[in-house]
């Protein structure tokens, strides 16, 4: 029982990470119809920035805030300088650019900080935090921090005029222009926010997976799955999807372990949890192609 709770807790912590990256993917997807394959590598790069800042002697949280801020600026810059000129380019050109960005981020991080795996600190105190035996301090911290960031974003989109303008621009760009929204800047802002949310995920997960230029590869895959299972056009769905996938993969591994313990037969273990989780995702999508929360917008003509 305790092991089950443990697995559940660590699933939630992983899920929080997937939720952030999935949300970053969805934010760009809803406004541009593109899936940013470089999202994970951008987050990895941001994580290196925060590592560098800490290496220069800054406190974890100062480095965290600065790195998130820098990621935001980088995201806006990438949109304005690289994607803006491709505004009318065919989808495939954009995809190639995303893959290029992925490769550039990856090799630049390797060139600047080397490919050696680095340890990444956790800001959460060991003893006074967490629920002993069930959820570790870092896991609980990750969940709290991501939930805080996600609710900030939710409030921003729901209650501020700028958030409303961004939603309007994503939904109907031409009409948004007709009420005076500078749609181009809204897209850039969306990229900035996506990069910022991604960086939160990177910095939070680095303590678990260690810091190296390929740390986000698997996570991006999980995030894609999360976004799809939640409904690719639905930000809230992506967040819930992240938690579902996170818990699901751990439950798969847990079940495998239990079966092995009971019967002595090895069927699935930690090595296969990604595969099985993705099989379940594919199954869900065949039954509900729009994702679990993929809302069909009611439209009357």
């Amino acid at each position, binding site marked *: 029982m305790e092991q089950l709770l443990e697995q559940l807790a660590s699933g939630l912590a992983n899920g929080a990470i997937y939720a952030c990256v999935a949300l970053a993917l969805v934010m760009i997807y809803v406004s541009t119809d593109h899936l940013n394959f470089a999202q994970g590598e951008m987050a990895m790069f941001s994580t290196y920035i925060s590592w560098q800042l800490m290496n220069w002697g800054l406190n974890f949280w100062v480095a965290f805030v600065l790195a998130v801020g820098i990621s935001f600026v980088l995201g806006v810059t990438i949109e304005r300088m690289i994607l803006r000129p491709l505004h009318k380019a065919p989808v495939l050109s954009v995809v190639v650019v995303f893959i290029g960005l992925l490769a550039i981020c990856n090799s630049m991080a390797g060139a600047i900080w080397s490919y050696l795996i680095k340890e990444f600190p956790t800001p959460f105190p060991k003893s006074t935090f967490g629920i002993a035996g069930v959820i570790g301090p870092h896991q609980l911290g990750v969940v709290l921090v991501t939930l805080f960031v996600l609710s900030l974003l939710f409030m921003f989109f729901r209650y501020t*005029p700028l958030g*409303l*303008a961004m*939603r*309007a621009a994503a*939904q*109907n760009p*031409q*009409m*948004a*222009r*007709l*009420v*005076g*929204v*500078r*749609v181009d800047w809204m897209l850039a802002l969306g990229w900035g926010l996506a990069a910022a949310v991604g960086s939160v995920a990177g910095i939070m997960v680095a303590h678990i997976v260690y810091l190296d230029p390929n740390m986000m590869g698997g996570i991006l895959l999980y995030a894609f799955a999360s976004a799809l299972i939640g409904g690719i056009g639905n930000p809230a769905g992506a967040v819930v999807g992240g938690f579902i996938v996170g818990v699901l993969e751990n439950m798969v591994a847990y079940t495998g372990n239990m079966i092995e313990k009971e019967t002595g037969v090895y069927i699935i273990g930690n090595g296969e949890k990604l595969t099985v989780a993705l099989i379940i995702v594919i199954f869900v999508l065949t039954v509900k192609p729009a994702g679990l929360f993929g809302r069909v*917008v*009611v*439209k*009357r*003509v």
Partner: protein
Amino acid sequence: MAALLQVDGLRAFYGKTQVLYDLGFEIADGGITTLLGANGAGKTTTLRAICNMVQTEGMVRFAGENIVGQPTEEIVRHRIAHVPEGRGTFTSLTVGENLRIAAYTIKDKASVKNELERVFTYFPRLRERVQQQAGTLSGGEQQMLAIARALMLKPRLMLLDEPSFGLAPLIVVEIFRILRRINEEEGVSILLVEQNAALALDLADYAYVLETGRVVMSDRAAVVKNDENIRKSYLGY
């Protein structure tokens, strides 16, 4: 009355296809002007050209300033409100959000509430539906929402593209009555594009008739309405 909008030598293109040929017309400040003509005459394109939503050349002078070449979102800031064909509803936003988004260019956020109240006096039905997803409104309600949203911009000029399209006659009458009130009470000038010429001529005080991207005639609405030749040759009724 002085002209609020002066259009001269207006040419518009979709890619290489020219749609408007040296179009010229004027809108009196405080007046209601209508553009009439058959399908494909260039009525919608003219509205789109004013807002720089198509490739445009020539002169569009609004309150003395040439606005050709300015981006759409800047032209809106001159207080030109465009109610596009198909109404441009933000279907996944609520009715209230659809209205508040139009106050985006208004700096004084305190006045937005007053604006909303003022808009609701014209469209009381929208007040009841403030929390509702806009995509679930009926066609007539969406048209009202589109006009209400345009009104939130505190416009000096309203461009209306076929507000009667696809609506029941009773709703159309109601909407046109509201347009008349908006014109009289708010002093908003209106440029109206309509398929339904009889309806448009009742509301407007001046009319231009377009054919294949050119103005073929213009006169006071009352004159056009009573001229059987014009009606038969251009307006088809």
